[in-house]
């Protein structure tokens, strides 16, 4: 595939990411298919897919918050405020369903406000266990997934049998494995893509029909795997944090612009999204439950995991041979706020330089961030 084809594929990905809800509305009209939005982080999209609907992971958009301020305080995180705002403005009403998985009190608030204000949309919340050491946690997860499955069946007007659920899981596993391949490729050959494009690829995977995304991704990979490593100068960085939403492209550009070479990450719209597959053998609902309860990747919204996030980060940073770490924190994100002091302490103990950058939904001047990042990069040299 010539380079122009890479551009073409990227443009297809970008089209849906740039204006997700507009594009999805058009897609729905053209395909006459039901569509259900789901909250980021913990909802198993495979269930929606197996019901024959298009699953879309809700994304934060650039829309300025206006009407939303009559529903929610400014000290809620960006994606919560943004989704409430676009929801009450009617921009999500094209969805047939909106299914949440309880992440934190802010995301539950968004679910509740949207449930109240989107009368035409079926809104449900999966209360999947968050304490992983509790007795009977597996049974509870399965029970809740079964309840959600039954409701999705009603919404879709069709049964989700084991065969179709397994097919969906396979489609998702395949996409995840391709994303991991891309991740590994960019680790070996950093700057093959600007990091903002990596984000576009992952976000588009959350929005496009999986099979279509997989096809495009295969094309892209075939081309990229044949490319010569770019010669890059700068300092190797690990990017961490940013739960639920993608960091804005200008921050990513800024990091790269001051000489950062992003070699690895644990962002939600990054490694977290594709790190873990769902098992293919046995009962598919059980397999989804197992994935929910997977303990190898620390999640700050869950408890009872054997490894703390800070310890995991130190190990990952060392393995990636990054010289430093940029912690991107969504302003007002409580799960992250509570882990940051521990992360800071652990990184300091491990002599890993780090910088923390808070990000906001509203457009803010990046000059201050630029100066801090430049100083950080100087220090790494």
């Amino acid at each position: 595939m010539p380079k122009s084809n890479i551009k073409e594929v990227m443009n297809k990905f970008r089209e849906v990411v740039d204006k997700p809800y507009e594009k999805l509305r058009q897609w729905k009209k053209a395909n006459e298919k039901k569509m259900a939005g789901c909250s980021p982080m913990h909802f198993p999209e495979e269930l929606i897919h197996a019901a024959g609907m298009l699953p879309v992971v809700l994304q934060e958009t650039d829309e300025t918050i206006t009407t939303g301020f009559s529903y929610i305080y400014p000290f809620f995180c960006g994606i919560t405020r943004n989704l409430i705002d676009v929801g009450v403005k009617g921009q999500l009403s094209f969805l047939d369903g909106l299914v949440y998985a309880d992440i934190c009190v802010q995301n539950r608030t968004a679910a509740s406000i949207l449930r109240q204000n989107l009368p035409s949309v079926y809104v449900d919340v999966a209360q999947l266990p968050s304490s992983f050491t509790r007795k009977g946690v597996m049974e509870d997860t399965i029970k809740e997934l079964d309840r959600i499955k039954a409701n999705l069946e009603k919404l879709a007007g069709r049964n989700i049998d084991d065969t179709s659920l397994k097919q969906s899981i396979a489609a998702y596993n395949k996409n995840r494995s391709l994303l991991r391949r891309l991740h590994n490729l960019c680790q070996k050959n950093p700057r093959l893509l600007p990091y903002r494009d990596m984000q576009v690829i992952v976000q588009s995977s959350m929005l496009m029909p999986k099979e279509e995304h997989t096809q495009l991704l295969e094309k892209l990979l075939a081309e990229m795997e044949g490319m010569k490593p770019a010669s890059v100068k700068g300092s190797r960085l690990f990017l961490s944090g940013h739960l639920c939403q993608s960091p804005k492209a200008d921050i990513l550009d800024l990091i790269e612009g001051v000489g950062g070479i992003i070699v690895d990450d644990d962002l939600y719209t990054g490694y977290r999204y594709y790190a873990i597959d769902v098992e293919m053998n046995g009962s598919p609902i059980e397999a989804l439950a197992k994935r929910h309860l997977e303990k190898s990747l620390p999640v700050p919204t869950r408890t009872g995991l054997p490894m703390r996030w800070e310890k995991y980060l130190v190990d990952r940073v060392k393995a990636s041979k990054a010289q430093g770490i940029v912690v991107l924190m969504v302003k007002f994100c409580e799960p992250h706020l509570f882990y940051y002091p521990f992360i800071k302490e652990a990184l300091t103990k491990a002599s890993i330089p780090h910088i923390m950058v808070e990000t906001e939904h509203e457009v803010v001047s990046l000059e201050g961030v630029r100066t801090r990042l430049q100083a950080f990069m100087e220090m790494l040299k």
Partner: protein
Amino acid sequence: METQVKKANKLDSTSLIGQMMTASFADIKRQAAEGKQVVWANGLPVYVLARAADMPVLHCEGLVAGLAAKRLEKPFQDAAEAFGFLPDACSYARSFIGAARITMGDYHLDPSMNQDLLLMPKPALYVNSAGGCGTGRPWGEAMATLFNIPVYHFEPRFLWNESDLKDSVADFVRQEQEFIALLEKITGRPYDWNRLKEMLVEVKRTVTLRNEAMKLCQHIPSPASFFDWATNIAAVAHLIGLPGTGDLLQKTREEVEQRIAQGIGAMPNEKYRLYWDGILTWGKIGVLANKFAALDACVVAGAYTHLVWWPRPEMIDPEKPLESIAYNCCDIMLLRSYEHRIKVLADFCREYSIDGLVVSETQTCRAFNSHAFMIMDGLARRLGIPAVTIGGDSCDIRFYSDAQVDTRLQALLETIEARRKVRQV
């Protein structure tokens, strides 16, 4: 001529709370020194289970609120900030994580500070039961990490539908059983069910008396105010299950009845009756009570005081202790759907003859702020009750501004007045 400054007429019996809190804290420290394993807990009073296992319990919010009311919380917050906490995080949690850092010797108090009051005994167990507020999760994990101790996370379900309560209670009972097994493991003793039952007799008496006394505030003028009931939370939270709480509430109830008989109000001249949504800025409790008194307004009830702590006393049956606790932890306002909340609030406003709503923005608590605007809007639509928001926070005083509160309250009272005039026409 000297103008008389109007002040809130506080309940005498609430002043006993401070003494009981001080005594209980000293007692916990004494027990810790004698080698008893201490429990630190946040949130809902399911920790009474640990108290019955003869483990002294420190209730984080209770202690911080008490210290904040005396403006002594700052060293805790400084310790948390020195650790890397940003002020956006729940200030109850942040303060107590600061307290933990101090306890561990990772942050040193200025020698001029009251070490006795600010140094906590180390815990052997942490209990998170933040009423379904997800913030309790990383908070509990943080505590467990700092002290290298076990943590138990209670997870009551959010009640999206009215019919969900029964299942939620059954689920919570399972968690209590698991927690009791953990207590047995930690203490190395079989659980003392008799002690728990005895404790629940006292709990039932205390919370029933409190709820009855609060209900008496439907009387006009109200014999007590939200600020009395806020101080009084300690009796049903930090002190719950301890001897003396029932007697204290008996006194409170009698005092309230006496005031009604004598026509004495909580405010010298009650012209407006208000409802308080959200937590209050503890460091300003006295200032706020007097501010309302000066404006001839009485805050007669609130969500934090009335709808969170033991909201179902009638469900307490000491012979069924786990179910009793479960009902009172699962059926709280924070876990209820918007439809349910607005219905309860509308009934409340009618029963307590509410003229207006004060929504206290608790800047670092998203749980208590989750539906503030919809509640304001819903009540305005249903009952035509006006509302105002005022800035603040539970224990981070930096989010509070007197000037802003004054202007907003003035605006609210003017709206109420205008509404009354329209009605008269």
